[in-house]
């Protein structure tokens, strides 16, 4: 029994050693070959270094990450409307409404265009005599202007403990045209305003402007001064 076991073990050992000797037949042991050959290469390259020939540089195949730069949104344009009171010389003060557009050129300077209209009332002469000097259509006071503005006194206003809004005063002056009393007049406008920005994209304006033009509507040539005060709301885009 014991001898049988010995014979069995001997056969097992013999067969295992036989398998080991035939392993290259099935592709096993290849990795060892490669490592052996790389060893040989390194030895060869070292020999090349010694002989003064340049070593083989490995080209890194790394793809550089392309950074796609997102477009930065510019918010220099401003568009909105306003509502207020316009005092038309000799014709009383009445409500005025209009639209305004702006372009901010630098932090200081901005360009502004306004177009508004108001309906004039009656002169004291018209009220007392009952004679009407202008037709209903001619009583519409329509104007536009192109102005250059300058921001000054930048600051912040605080509402309670947690809210701060940026604000700024501005002055502006420009030229434009006024249609009133059946005539179109070259008009110079100038004024000042105050704006508060509850958010970066919205502004509340309070502005006072004078619109001056030369008129002979009532028979005498004179400079008519039309003072306007309005509250406006504009949006940046």
């Amino acid at each position: 029994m014991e001898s049988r076991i010995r014979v069995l073990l001997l056969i097992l050992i013999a067969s295992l050693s036989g398998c080991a000797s035939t392993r290259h037949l099935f592709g096993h042991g290849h990795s060892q070959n490669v490592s052996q050959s790389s060893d040989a290469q390194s030895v060869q390259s070292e020999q090349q270094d010694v002989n003064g020939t340049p070593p083989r540089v490995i080209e890194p195949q790394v793809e550089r990450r392309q950074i796609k730069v997102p477009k930065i949104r510019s918010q220099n344009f401003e568009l909105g409307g306003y509502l207020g009171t316009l005092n038309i010389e000799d014709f009383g003060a009445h409500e005025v409404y209009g639209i305004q557009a702006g372009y901010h050129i630098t932090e200081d300077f901005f360009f502004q265009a306004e177009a508004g209209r108001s309906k004039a009332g009656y002169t004291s002469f018209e009220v007392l005599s009952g004679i009407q000097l202008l037709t209903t259509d001619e009583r519409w006071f329509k104007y536009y202007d192109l102005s250059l503005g300058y921001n000054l006194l930048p600051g912040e206003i605080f509402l309670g403990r947690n809210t701060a809004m940026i604000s700024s005063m501005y002055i502006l002056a420009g030229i434009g045209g006024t249609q009133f009393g059946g005539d179109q007049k070259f008009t110079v406008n100038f004024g000042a305003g105050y704006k508060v920005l509850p958010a970066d994209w919205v502004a509340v304006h309070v502005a006072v402007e004078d619109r001056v033009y030369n008129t002979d509507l009532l028979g005498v040539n004179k400079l008519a001064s039309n003072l306007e005060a309005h509250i406006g709301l504009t949006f940046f885009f």
Partner: protein
Amino acid sequence: MRELAPRLGRSALRSPVLFRACALLVLLLAPLAVSAREYLQVFVTTPYLELHTGPGRGYPVFNVVERGASVDVLKRRTDWFKVRTERGVEGWAAQHDMLKTVLADGTAFTFDVGDRAGFTSHHWEGGVFLYGDWGGASEISAYGSYSLTNTLQVELTVSEFLGNTANGTTADVGLAHVFFPQWRWSPFVSLGTGIVQTEPKATLVVPADRSDQSAYVGAGIRFYLTRRFFLRGEYKDHIIFTKRNENEKVDEWKAGFGFFF
């Protein structure tokens, strides 16, 4: 009503079809949400980056971003950038400070700045003529132009003239050739066509409004002032193709300021 809401919520989750549809939607939308950064990320290389409360040098500095930290660039107004720090603080950084930041790959953050180089090469231009003379009448005029190349611009001009005998409006479209866009004094010539609408004053014998086509040749000069500003003066020789036997010739002189962006 208070009891209805939870009941609706439970029934929606209980419905397998709806639940799967929601899950599918989330799976489909998730890659969109994380695929690209919405805002440009730049890194501070100077000792610190100052954040102002508003887009102007007069607004106070309320926060600083340290060297090596990043900010997201949210938007731009004139020469100021609204940025958000890694901690979520939002403020305005000046253009000259942003020029010293770098992108994630280490390259400098570049953008158009309003300077002499911008005067030479830009896309859009606008301006207002504060002085205008249209054949003796006062004129108010504004223009806008688009640069096809540094030397060739397409221009659109809208004007209103107010005179003793007639009022009217004009609209011109044309081409302008800038000879030396890199010069501070930069001359140009222009050529174009337009429409003139004339309203003679009611006191005249023929008070009929009329609209005529016109053509012009012109010359002018631009002078770079500072930042995004320049002065512009020009002369245009208009020929108005009237319905009468003779065409009308009008000289137009204008001076004003312009800006580019």
